[in-house]
């Protein structure tokens, strides 16, 4: 049982970690916590559904399609909604992004209604590993999530684009002055984050059910993971995701599961009180 | 080290063997200093010597890893910045920090400590007193604005000021407060030479007429020379040497580490 809970936690973490990293990347460049992640993930899930079930594409192709569309949506949302508001306080933008998430979610509802949906692939029975059960599909998600984390880390650390992203996150004015095009780097970051959100939509659709609230339900865990990791650090986000994923699953050992969400929050609160800058964080976001 | 000074008025602040490290890096290393009432002490030294960190330790923005700080006879090592301020210690910041969306006048009015009107109840029960105090502060603010030559921008948002004006505003804010010791962190940086005169006059006046004591971190040697009664040179987290400005400028170590050939 305990090993199973551990595996459960890992699968949770693999669902949360990539979007938490994407959230962190976006935060660096946009400089506010973009809560529209819920909307983006929902868009991703429904785009993949459209391609997979309505157009009858194979899931891999549908996933790529979802990633592309979501990347476009994230970029457009920045250009149309957020970029003109860049002088606002981060908290104001946070509220705007929640509003935008609601808009996306309800646009999806306009076209797809609130019905539950699933991809056109059969459910799988688990394989047993040392008494814990895991499905091949979950294993894929787990490995992909890990691969994404490592890939993002490598990109940030060693590639030209990654360094540019970090430079913009660090000091956007100076980055421009040194010749970096804010527009292109922002667009690139949006696209990268968007692709990850789209992929998360697919993961979530495989794991849960596809419905307009699918992204919203994941928003708090993702945000929590990013915060625990100290916003701005991909590796931190991974560790944060593991903490949040585990905490949610292990709650059941201590409390009725109806308090699951509460315990997640409590852990975050206690943690923040002890270590206000997160696991790997560097302080200062206010101005 | 400070023993070279003649016995005079009692020390207002005394730091003994204060240290602070960040991980393995020791920013301030068993630093001691003593400032007597009415003195203007200059704290100089190369960049990275730990002057700003030392200021943070004195003002309570950071806690020392080791050592003791005594202010006006009381051990304040563990007090919060606001409590230190209420005991009469004030500071400014190297990069000026103003309340940016408030007006210049408001920036000054907020400074006086423990205002009756900052509590909720007196707003309803002791309105007249609140108003009287406010009037007094307002009059004082007007004087200070005149001294700092900021009258013409009193209703501007502080964020609209130029860098040098912000510096002045920061210093002006300290004039609104009844304090015994003022810690100035590079008051001259970014201030125009002509305004530097205003600034140095202000400090002189505060010391002579109001009996205030200053500890100043500064790179402008003219300012240090014209103001300071004694100077302490810091390097690598500790006192290199201290004495009068003239003694300092002759010191070979100081010349090598700090002043270079220029002085």
């Amino acid at each position: 049982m305990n090993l199973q809970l551990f595996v459960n936690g890992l699968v949770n973490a693999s669902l949360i970690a990539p979007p938490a990293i994407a959230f962190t990347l976006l935060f660096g460049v946009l400089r506010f916590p973009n809560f529209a992640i819920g909307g983006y993930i929902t868009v991703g899930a429904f785009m993949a559904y459209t391609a997979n079930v309505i157009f009858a594409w194979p899931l891999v192709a549908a996933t790529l399609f979802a990633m592309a569309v979501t990347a476009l949506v994230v970029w457009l949302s920045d250009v149309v909604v957020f970029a003109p508001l860049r002088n606002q306080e981060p908290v104001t933008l946070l509220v705007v992004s929640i509003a935008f998430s609601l808009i996306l979610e309800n646009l999806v509802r306009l076209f797809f209604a609130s019905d539950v949906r699933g991809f056109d692939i059969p459910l799988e029975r688990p394989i047993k590993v040392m008494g814990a059960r895991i499905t091949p599909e979950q294993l894929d998600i787990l490995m992909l999530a890990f691969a994404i984390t490592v890939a993002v880390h490598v990109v940030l650390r060693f590639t030209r684009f990654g360094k540019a992203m970090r430079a913009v996150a660090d000091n956007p004015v100076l980055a421009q002055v040194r010749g970096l095009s804010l527009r292109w780097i922002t667009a690139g970051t949006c696209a990268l984050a968007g692709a990850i959100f789209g992929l998360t939509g697919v993961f979530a659709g495989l794991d849960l059910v596809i419905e307009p609230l699918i992204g919203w339900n994941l928003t708090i865990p993702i945000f929590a993971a990013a915060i625990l990791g100290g916003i701005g650090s991909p590796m931190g986000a991974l560790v944060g995701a593991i903490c949040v994923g585990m905490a949610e699953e292990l709650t059941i050992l201590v409390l009725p599961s109806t308090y699951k969400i509460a315990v997640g929050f409590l852990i975050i609160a206690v943690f923040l009180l002890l270590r206000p800058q997160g696991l790997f964080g560097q302080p200062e976001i206010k101005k | 080290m400070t023993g070279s000074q003649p016995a005079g008025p009692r020390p207002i602040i005394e730091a003994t063997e204060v240290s602070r490290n960040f991980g393995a890096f020791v920013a301030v290393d068993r630093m001691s200093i003593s400032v007597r009432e009415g003195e203007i002490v200059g704290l100089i030294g190369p960049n990275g010597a730990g002057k700003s960190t030392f200021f943070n330790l004195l003002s309570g923005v950071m806690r020392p890893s080791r050592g003791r700080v005594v202010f006006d006879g009381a051990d304040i090592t563990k007090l919060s910045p606001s409590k230190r301020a209420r005991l009469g210690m004030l500071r400014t910041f190297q990069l000026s920090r103003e309340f940016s969306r408030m007006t210049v006048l408001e920036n000054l009015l907020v400074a006086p400590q423990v205002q009756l009107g900052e509590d909720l109840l007196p707003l309803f029960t002791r309105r007249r007193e609140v108003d009287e105090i406010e009037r007094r502060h307002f009059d004082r603010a007007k004087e200070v604005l005149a001294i700092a030559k900021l009258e013409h921008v009193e209703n501007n948002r502080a964020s609209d000021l130029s860098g040098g004006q912000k510096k002045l505003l920061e210093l002006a804010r300290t004039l609104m407060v009844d304090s015994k010791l003022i810690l100035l962190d590079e008051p001259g940086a970014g201030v125009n030479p002509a305004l530097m005169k205003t600034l140095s006059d202000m400090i002189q006046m505060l010391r002579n007429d109001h009996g205030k004591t200053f500890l100043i971190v500064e790179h402008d040697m003219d300012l240090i020379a014209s103001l300071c009664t004694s100077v302490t040179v810091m390097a690598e987290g500790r006192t290199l040497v201290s004495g009068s400005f003239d003694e300092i400028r002759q010191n070979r170590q100081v010349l090598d580490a700090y002043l270079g050939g220029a002085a």
Partner: protein
Amino acid sequence: MAINLTRRNALKLGAATAVFAPSILRAQGAEINVGSLTPNTGGGGPFGPNITASHKRVADLVNGQGGVLGRQIRLYQENSETNPETAVRAADKLINVNGVVGILGTWSSSVTLGIMPKCQTAGVIQMCTSSSSDIPMADEKGLVFNFQALSPVWGDAIAKLAVTRGYGSYGLMALNNDFTKSMVDAFAAVVGADKVIKEPLYYNAAQASYRSEVTSLIEDEPDAVFIPSYVTDFTAVYKELYRQGYEGAVITTGLSVGPKFKEAVGDAADGVIHGLPVPPLESPAYGEYLKEAGLEDTGNVQHPFGTAGRDQMSTLLLAIEKAGTTDTAAVAKAIWQVTTGEGKRTVYNVTDGLAAIRAGEEINYSGASSSIEFDAEGMVLGRDFQLAEIRGGEDVVLERLKF
């Protein structure tokens, strides 16, 4: 200061609503106003639209035939969002702006109960499909009619089937709400507390995962698990059950396993046992409903709540014709008269019913969701209850119970 401002706002409001005033006034003069408040989004999202559509179809039908009491029906439709906060304000608008005689179609108990104080004060009839046993208690004026069997009935019926299958042990898990909780209690009472492996597990809707709940549920490998829930959360829970390799029987409510569920989980849906109150499939009214809604007769239950929507609107309109007035107390009394009692002429749709009433006959409306008989508290008495198992992607009826 603030008083001024509120008044100013009120004026602004007045101005905004004045735009609509002509139509409203006309409506109040000649038409009979009926409110429909359905869960088109939120937890009831999968069911609300069917109810909404049914209300509209019946109202349009009657209007096409000249209306009731010679007056047209004006239907005002609002979305409760399955949220009592929103519902209260929507009800407010229906009552005070649209002047409705009744509010039909509320689904979750919290919404039905939430708007009840307003409805009671204004003397507005409520017709719902909610299952909380609080409903009759809160209805002090006898204006509330429930078209749904209360949840203990569900638990009871489903449990009896389970007992005949002879499962040795049960795991219980349910969505955390009143409806499902009392169902769990009823279920446990029938199968016997000794067979229930451990405390029932309750979970909240909209969780990011149900993994550990499922792990804990099947930890001791019960022969069967009973999971009363709604379709969105059940689908996620069921996927998890399947993926954690649970091989025992899965029992739930029929609400959770509609066509969307089957579509979403595919072949893995086989073997799920479920039950819910159903329309009498052999009833002519149900057959007519299918035609009206443009559905094929699959021999299976479709639109369990859509049928109730049809019956709500039909019953209300028949009762108004019967009462000869829109005075709600009289209409409420007439609702019993047109639905309950013996020796009357049975009608299956509103057209026949209106004709019969106008011909001076006593009628008993028998609906698409049930034969529609109310007890003294306005709770529907008999609804057929169907137990089925999914085999090959289709519901195979195991048993149909009559109450």
